[in-house]
């Protein structure tokens, strides 16, 4: 299963980005193959429509879960209709590698 995580940088040591649509980078983590892929977000400076455009990016990778600090109202409804689970973590200093470790437990 693939999980998307919003990140402030392109290393596993980077912290979780609290915004979804305008995050710095998406991390696509595959729990089966243990592979990590970093995708720079082309919408990070967009004035409008960053959320839906970012949904397109992660949905096209076939993810089943998305982890971020916050989701906007447009994004929430899009993910709901795509049946992708949203996970909100309100801890800005959480590192990507720590989240991956949590997903891997058991």
């Amino acid at each position, binding site marked *: 299963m693939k999980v998307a995580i919003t990140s402030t940088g392109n290393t596993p040591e980077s912290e979780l980005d609290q915004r979804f649509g305008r995050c710095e980078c998406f991390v696509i983590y595959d729990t089966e193959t243990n592979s990590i892929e970093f995708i720079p977000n082309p919408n990070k400076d967009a004035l409008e429509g960053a959320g839906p455009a970012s949904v397109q990016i992660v949905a096209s990778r076939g993810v089943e879960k998305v982890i971020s600090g916050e989701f906007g109202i447009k994004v*929430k409804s899009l993910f*709901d209709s795509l049946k992708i689970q949203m996970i909100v973590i309100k801890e800005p200093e959480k590192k990507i590698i720590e989240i991956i470790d949590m997903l891997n437990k058991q």
Partner: protein
Amino acid sequence: MAPRPCRLRKVSKPPLISGLKPYGDKLKKENVSSIFLFIEEYEAIRLCDHEIMNHKQAANMMDVSRPTLTRIYTAARRKIADALVNGRQIIIEGGKIYFDSEWYQCSNCCCYFNNPGKMDGIKECPLCRSSEFTNVQQPE
């Protein structure tokens, strides 16, 4: 000046059916167009006439004002009446809506998560697999 954008209507769950078809001998198959009933209109009918709420309660449920709810409801009734009288097919789709999903908070790692597959209930936190979580309102 551009008009104020319309407020998104909250719909609790998507309709079971995607539409209704008329049948009967006198039905003219040609030149009868279908009617698009918006999902928000379906929801208004469901709340007012199926759950038997008054317009104020229904408006609260859909997160719009009472006059707006009444407008949506009236439009819905007119469309359904048109379909009944003229033998039109009803297609339920579209509308300015968002689906309201249930949110949970994990007691172990404090994360929030929702449950997109409503059919099967949630058993564990998707992050830390703890089975301790509580039902919450949407995280702000």
